[in-house]
């Protein structure tokens, strides 16, 4: 075999380029085994292409083979399994934050609502109280007006009852309507009766002294305007008020005569 001719044919260059047929490749492979100078030539051709292609190489990044080993799971040493960085899940955080805020808001609104409800209850209770107060006030106004009208009646004669020995500072007034046979006693000037005692009003005839009971000043302590109305069918000449044991007496206890006044004729 003429190796010189073989070499100069240009086939070996194409062999390195990988451009020959399978048959030719096998042929050259076998020939190169047999003839070292052919093999040498092939290696020299390859070396020139290697040199050229190496010169065209980009600067290789460090650890490029490690990358490949990792891709192929070839690393002999214990692989450091990197935990994936926990990405902050902002949508979830925002969602939870919104949920917390909304629940807090709902709770706040619920307590506000409760407070308002109880306030409404208090206010409506107050309103009821005020309404009843107004009613009481207007009732008492009506009562006062009717009382005033009674006192202003032209048929009224006023009898001033002055304080007596037992209680010189006491006083009272009797408004006597002879036509209607009624008398109103204004007992504002009397002290509060002690427990177990009650004031009793008497109509008096002077000659001879004849007392007739008109009635008791019932609930004296409670009564606010201390004006008491009585029927008086008598031809009274004077009015007196005595302090009597609870329930009143049949005849006045003169020692306990608080006020006395004579009616003008």
């Amino acid at each position: 075999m003429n190796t010189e001719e073989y070499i100069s044919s240009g086939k070996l260059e194409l062999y390195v380029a990988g451009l020959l047929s399978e048959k030719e490749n096998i042929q050259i492979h076998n020939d190169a085994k047999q003839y070292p100078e052919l093999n040498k030539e092939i290696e020299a051709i390859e070396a020139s292409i290697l040199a050229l292609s190496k010169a065209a190489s980009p600067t290789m990044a460090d650890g490029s083979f490690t990358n490949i080993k990792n891709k192929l799971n070839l690393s002999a040493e214990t692989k450091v399994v990197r935990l994936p960085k926990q990405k902050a899940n902002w949508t979830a955080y925002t969602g939870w934050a919104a949920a917390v805020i909304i629940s807090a808001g709902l709770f706040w609104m619920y307590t506000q609502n409760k407070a308002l409800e109880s306030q409404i209850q208090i206010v409506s209770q107050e309103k009821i109280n005020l309404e009843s107060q107004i009613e009481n006030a207007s009732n008492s106004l009506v009562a006062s007006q009717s009382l005033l009208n009674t006192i202003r009646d032209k048929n009224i004669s006023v009898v001033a009852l002055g304080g007596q020995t037992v209680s010189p500072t006491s006083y009272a007034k009797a408004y006597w309507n002879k036509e209607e046979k009624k008398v109103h006693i204004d007992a504002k000037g009397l002290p509060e009766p002690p427990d177990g005692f009650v004031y009793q009003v008497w109509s008096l005839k002077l000659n001879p002294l004849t007392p007739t009971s008109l009635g008791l000043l019932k609930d004296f302590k409670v009564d606010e305007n201390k004006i008491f109305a009585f029927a008086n069918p008598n031809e009274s000449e004077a009015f007196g008020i005595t302090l009597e044991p609870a329930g009143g007496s049949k005849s006045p206890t003169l020692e306990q005569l608080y006020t006395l006044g004579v009616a003008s004729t």
Partner: protein
Amino acid sequence: MQLETLVIQFQKKDPLAFEKLYNMYSENICGVINTIVKNSDLSQEICQDVFVKIWNNSDKYNSSKGRFFTWILNIARNAAIDEVRSKSYKNTKKNLSADYFVGILEDSNSLENKIDAIGIKKFLVHLKDKCVQIIELLYFKGYTQKEASEELDIPIGTVKTRNRSCISQLRKNVLN
């Protein structure tokens, strides 16, 4: 270690043999890819994929069919050409065949292609344009003789002889 032994170890899935082969050929393979994609980062990315592929297909290599380097060279340029022809790449670099190896030399001044421009120029001294063209077509772009003859508009017999003389010149430059 002999190349053949190394390749046999590699085919037996020996990671150490694989690493040695990687150290022997990675720069060449990445270089070939770079002449095609003309992008430093992208060529390294493809280069890694090529070596992954080589490992996964190691049983498909048969020394009787050619040199080991020729085998991985073929895989590399196919991967690079696939990338260039992919849709995303088409928009940026359309003309593959007309853009010769010399282009990367002119581009090499830019920082993106951090290649050894001085080294490569040394290899290309006295190398005519038609040599650069034919070497690139046959070795880096995987053109067949017929395709190269059409591309360069020369008879098919001339492809072989011109390639022979161009490689001879390159070998002289490499030795110097």
